């Protein structure tokens, strides 16, 4: 499982503007392999044309 080092975590947190405690940082490092595994699960060989699901239609305000 991939691990998250302190430098990468610092970068991600700085990018997000978040300031966790040391305990929370440790929790994020422990959780990271599971998040990475989930990200790997949704990464399938589907080619460049595969569309995302379309959640929204056109609301009345879009058509006015």
């Amino acid at each position, binding site marked *: 499982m991939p691990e998250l080092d302190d430098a990468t975590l610092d970068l991600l947190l700085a990018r997000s503007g978040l300031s966790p405690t040391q305990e929370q940082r440790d929790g994020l490092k422990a*959780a990271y392999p599971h998040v990475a595994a989930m990200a790997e*699960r949704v990464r399938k060989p589907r080619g460049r044309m*595969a569309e995302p*699901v379309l959640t929204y*239609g056109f609301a009345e305000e879009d058509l006015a």
Partner: protein
Amino acid sequence: MTSIPTIASAAKLIATKQLSPVELTRDCLDRVRALDGELHAFILVTEERAMADARAAGAAIMAGRSTGPLCGIPIGLKDIVDTKGIPTTCHSKILHDNVPTADATCAEKLAAAGTVLMGKTATHEFADGGPSFDLPWPPARNPWNTAHFTAGSSSGTGAGIAAGLILGGIGTDTGGSIRGPAALCGIAGIKPTYGLVSRAGVAPAAFTLDHIGPMAWTAEDCALMLQALAGPDARDPASASQPIPDYTAQLGTGIKGLRIGVIHHFHEVDHKVSDGTQRGIDAAIATLRELGAEISEVTLSPLAEWHACGTLISLTERAAAYDEWARTRLADFSARVQQRLLMGALVSGVDYVQAVRRRRELRAELKAAMAGLDLVLTAAQPTEAPKIDEVPDWDVGQKPGFTMPFNVAGYPAMSLCSGFGEGGLPVAIQLVGKPFQEATVLRAADAFEKATEFRDRRPALSSALVAAQ
């Protein structure tokens, strides 16, 4: 009254003037006063509003202007639903003093249907996290055993209905937050098709997974509430414009020939349920078969695939929605929600879009699997309710739940009581229909409930109180 009525039974008594909304509301308020100190189902009881609503409903009925079967019915609204002039806290310190200036669409619709607003019900903070003890209000307790968890996040609505403090209420469901509490509190709850019920004025958890729906003691009651709630709304950009059928019209017409596929691998392999839950599922399948349903087996991608897709979307959309407060007021959230918001930093933009592409594939897979079926069936929860102080902090590596697949797909899904486990607490099944086929889900659920005796039993604390009233 000698027992706690359902919405349907109370509506009949009210329509024939054998019961007044004021009497019914007073009975519910008496139960709130007697039990809510222990249950914590409510964040705020709106007694004055309830009595005013009840008097108005009574007057309308006496004048021959009833607004229908919900006229005079006491309900609760999960406290992430905006209510004009009434505090809406999202069970959070962050919104402790928040008083909305407009009603959410679902609140407005239930008020127009003549319901009696009993108050705002407990939730997990911003419909997220879990039972938290570091918030301004305690978490709701399970009326079947108050040492136990209700599930969430529509925890107060679930507890309040099971205990008879309210006859129905609003829940919201991003990964199972209607169906989880419905299952563990032994009531009925339906997550409608995405877009059928407006989300306008309801605090978001994850925009594309959020559903609003009714919770009540029976499927019939859920049908009555859904009738009032469903329909297009220009305030919700995801609102669907499908025609709204009569959700009660098919109730009682039987389920002979209904085709139900059981997703055995979800609850027997991917996440094996407890023996008591499995017995409830097996007995429910036998009952549905006896009622004339044609039962078959259906196979989908493993639960972990659906869980990964839904969780990545949920983490990211939640982190985006609450980004400003996460940056500036992180410590004001509960520890559980802080953890969840921080997790958003671990999901990249590419991860999110891959999850949304995966979602399209999974939805197509479910559509194909249900081509020759009317419904699919699986567990709603893996076990009976655990003790509330033994609910672990949310663990991203936990076993996947049974409810998230149908948030990912957006299909209608309902939890209903299928018996009681070894600990005497409710267990449940989940019935899932095709998009906008809520009427079929409700018909099957109603037939099942009426063929079993599980709707005759209430939590002991409520039964004892009603007997003494």
